[in-house]
Every structure is written in C-alpha cells, then in structure tokens.
C-alpha cells in the first residue's frame, strides 16, 4: 500500500473524529451565518440566519425519502427487463 493509500486507510477508519469535526463545522457555519447575511435576499426567506442550512437539510431529507421510498420502487426493474439490450 502506498503512503497515500495508508493515509486514506487511516482517515477512513476515524469515523468518530470525522463525525465530530463535521458537526463542529456545521455549528461554526451557523454561527457565522448570524454575522454574515446576503446583501439582497432573492427568495425572501434567505434573509433569516440559518435559512440555507434549513433549506439544505429539508431538501436533502425530502429528496432522499421521495426518491428512495416512492420513486425507486415505482421505476426499478430487473437488469434484463429490456431483454438482452
């Protein structure tokens, strides 16, 4: 295994560290959003702090739930659905 591969191997095993860093980064971003706002709120709601965080979270939830729970069961077929083509 190359040194870069070994590094990736080590990083890949640090689940807890990555998760904690990720949560800390999210909190930091929300804190920054209290101070940094858009000059012009194009959507209206984006003037409020945390609006884009909520948007990303809600859209992520909705996309995954709709696609995995509703759309995929409707359109998934076996590999040979079209025959050998």
């Amino acid at each position, binding site marked *: *295994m*190359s040194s*870069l*591969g*070994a*590094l*990736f*191997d080590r990083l*890949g095993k640090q689940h807890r560290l990555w*998760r904690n860093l*990720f949560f800390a*980064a*999210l909190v930091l*971003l*929300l804190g*920054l*959003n209290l101070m*940094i*706002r*858009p*000059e*012009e709120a*194009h*959507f209206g709601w984006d003037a409020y702090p945390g609006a*884009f*965080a*909520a*948007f*990303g*979270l*809600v*859209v*992520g*939830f909705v*996309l*995954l*739930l709709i*696609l*995995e*729970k509703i*759309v*995929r069961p409707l*359109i*998934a*077929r*076996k*590999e040979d*659905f*079209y025959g*050998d*083509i």
Partner: protein
Amino acid sequence: MATSSFLHPSLGFLVLAVILPFLPGRQWKWLLLIPPVIALWSVFTMTPGVHAVLPYLGEQVILGRVDRLSLIFAQVFAVMSLIGMTYALNVPDKGSHIAASLYVAGSFGSVFAGDYLSLFVFWELMSIGSTFLIFLNRSRESTLAGFRYFLFHTVGGLFLLGGLLLRHQATGSFAFDHIPADGAALYDWLILIGFCVNAAVVPLHAWLPDAYPRATVAGAVFMCAFTTKTAVYVLARGFAGWEILAVAGAVMAVYGVGHAIIANSARRILAYDIISQVGYMAVGIGVGTAMTLDGAAAHAYAHILYKSLLFMSIGCLIQGLGTDRLEKLGGLASRLPWITLFFTVGSLSISGMPLFNGFVTKTMTIAGTAAAHHTAIALALEVATVGTFIAVGIRLPYFVFWRRRPADAGPEPVWKPLPWNMYAGMALAAVLCIAQGVHPDMLYHFLPYAVDVPYEPWAAWNVLQALLLLGFAGLATYLLRGLLVTHPGVNLDFDYFYRLIGKALLFVICRPIAWIDGLWSEVYRVIGLNALKVLGWVSAWFDRSVIDCMVDGSAITVSDVGRLGAKLQSGNLQNYLAMTGVLFLLIFGLVWYLG
C-alpha cells in the same frame, strides 16, 4: 481559404483521422497529441471576425465565425481534446482514435459555423463519430445502444434539417444567428428541437444514460464533454432569452439529479448528472441576461473539466477492475489512492464546493437567475445543487471508495495496472479544476458578455451559502444513511416510451406492408402461378415439337452420314481407287461445266 489569423482547429483532427489507418507500428500514438496542440495554438491566436467563407451552390458557407462566444467553447474543446487524447494515448484500437478525431472535428466545426449548412454537416459528423465510440466497445449491448443512439440523433438531425430548409425557403438565408423568441416560426421550433435532442433536454434525454455507460472507456470521456456542450453553444448562439429553455433547464436539473441519486452504475450516475448540469446551462441561456449567459458558458467550461475527470476516474475502474457496478465495488480508497484523489477533486467540483471550479460557475448561474427575478427557477437549481452533492459528492464515492466492500459482492476483482497516461490525463483535468476554483479570473477573463457588476464568487456570503447548503445536505444524508443501499437492476426512464413508440411505428408500418405482401402473394398464386403453368406447357410443347425435332433430325443425319462413311471405308484399295476416280471425274466434269 484560411487567413493567417485563422487556422480551423478541425483540420488537424481530420488529417489525423485520414492518415491513421495507413501508419504502421505503434509509435503513431504520439501523433494523437499533435491536433490538440495545434487546436490550442489556433484558438489562442485566432482573431475575431468572419473567416473561411466559401461559396457553395450560390450560398455563403462560413466555416470560421470567431467571436468571444465561439472562442470560449473552442478553447475548452481544445483543452479537453488534449486531456482526452492524453488519457487515450495507449488505446491500441486505431478505430477508436479515428472516431474520436472525427467527433472532435465535428464539434469544432459546429462551434465556428456561421451558417446552418456547415453547422448541419459538422453536426452529423459528430453524430457519426460518437456512434462509433459506442460501437467500438465491441459488445452486443454497446452495438444495440449505439444503434439506438444513432437512430435518436438521426431523428434530431432531421428536425434540424427540416427547420433549416424551411427557414431558407422562408427567409432566403442559411445564416445562423440569434432568433428572437417573439414571432418565432415553425422552422425555428424545428431547429430548436434538433438542438434540444443533443442537449438532452427532458424528455428527449434518455439516449444519454442509455449510451454513455456503454461506450468505450476513453470514448465516454470524449462524449461527456462534446455533444451536450456543443448543443449548449448553439442554443446560446441562436436561442438566448427563450423562456421555455429556462423552464426546461430547471426540469432537467432536478430530473437528472433525481435519477442520479438512485442509479446503480457509476457511469450511469454520471450520465444522469450531465443532464442535471446541462440544465443549469439551459437555464442561463433561457433567462438570457449577460450574467446568466456568462454563467452558462462558464459552467459549460467547468463542467467539461470536472465531468471528464469523473468519467476518467470511473473509466480507470472499468479498465482495471472490469466493473462500475456499485454493488460490486467498495474499499478502493486505500487500494487506489490516486484515483480516489482525482475522483474527489471532480466530485467536489461538481458539487460546487468552494476552492473548486464548479463553485465559481454554478453559483454565478444561480445568482444571475435569481437577480433576473426567476425565483422559482433559481430555487430549482438550489434543489439540484443539494441533489448533486448527495449523488456524486457523497453516495457515489461512498459506495466506490470509502465503504467496506460487502462480503456478498463476490470475489474481489484483480487490479490490472493502468498506463501512466491515464493518470496524466486525470492530473491535467484535476489541476485545472482547482486552479479555476482558486483563481476564477483565469476563466472569467474569457467570458463572452460584459456585465455591469462583475460577479464575485469569493464574497463571504457566497462562500458561506454554499457551505451551509452542502453541509446540511450532508447532514440529511448522514441522518438517512440507512436509505443508502445499492439495488442491482435498471430504473425505467423515458426510453421505455421510446421503445413503445418504436414498436408502435413498426406495427403501423409493418401491418400495411404485411397486408400488401399477403395480397400480392394471393394474386401471384391465383394469376401468376396459372400463367406460369400455361407458359410452361407452351414451352414444353415447343421444346418437344420444334426444338427436339431439329435436334433429333440433326442427330439422325449425323448418324446416317456416319453409317455411310463407315460403309465406304471397306479397307479395299481397289474400292478406294475407284471412288477416287469417280470423285475426280465428278470434279473435272463440274469444273468443265462451270468453266
């Protein structure tokens, strides 16, 4: 008639395609790099204006319309051709390089075409070249996919041809210029449909995820860059400000990413994401302000770089491991760290992460759309941004590189080492993705339209907004990680309806033909066969009565003469002398009588 300030970038590729079959050995591979280098030199030295105007059938064929819009697309095509040829350098199949060369030549030709005639010729050249990039994967699956691809693009080409001919009949001109949305005629709509086929506008898009995953490894890298982006160029040239394109683009952005999130093979995920990313460009063109048109051009540039990088990374897995199926992959980050690194650069770029080029182009398009008060469309693009990050920024790299390989995935495939040039191609694209992200001006400098207030991607709010959006989309994915599983199989798309239409067409065409064929068979049976019987009887009678009599008579005569001759040959010398004497007298008498 090239001037000193314009050398058509297609030329080198066309020459390469012509001479390649005749070159022996393997050292010809180095020639593959020459046309891209010439194209780069050409693009950076050509002067704006109209070049290479040829008279043809009383029309002006313009092969070299050079302005800032054509230049930025030609520039990224030249860069991409260098990346692609570097990546494909060790492919031994000459056919693959010839197809790629014709394809790239067609793309350059389309970008510099100033009239519909030459545009159509180069447009079709692209179609032919790219079809062979699918065929040359040499499997039954790719042959059939290539046929469907060619069929669909032929239909698109016919729309374009019909539109340009009707347009010429109405206006007397083949000039390819901007068409105002107000008062557009039927022929303009036909041309638009022809362009939309290549741009993979939903629902005319299903050829793309059908064909791209089945192309050759290097072929897919070329294809992900040229077809849809050439279509983006012609849409920007001819249909800027068409509101319907903005709506179609928003639909593409969300629809494409929706499919990408639930697709099961890596190249199919990337193919669906092309539709989504081209949606951003269609929105920029449809909104039609200077900022959104610049955003569309910039995003096309960035997209070519990062999408080719992603296709190259996955292509390495296909070549080295033999599969890109998610359920069979996993745990490759430590085994293939450089490919992981290059893929990560591409996935962060496409996600619009700050420091990578997708960030400086995607946000520009969305900001321009919002500033032009197309709020709902801008919102759809934000939704697509979240979806892209989930599909290509998280799900795809997780399944391929970072998760532990599942025990039920079968025996671990043996890794076949790859040639250096494949890494070189990826490195080139990765460096450009980061360089443009860090220094956006190296891209913005070439944008075609002047804006009053230049877009500042690195403004604090823009960076924070991107990080908030992506960060919390990542949190949603983390919380719903139980939903992220692989599902072997295919997902239905509009190609289901294409096939239905194809079957219906066959039915509609075959039924009348079968009826006519049946009728003809009956007519033949009743009339034709009886007539043939009569003719046969007459022929037999003629044969027996006339032919046979003549032949038999001749045979009998020959036999009688033979028999007489045999009798005359008695073997007695006296008889022979007597007969000679009689013969002599007969001849003498005859000569005396005649004389």
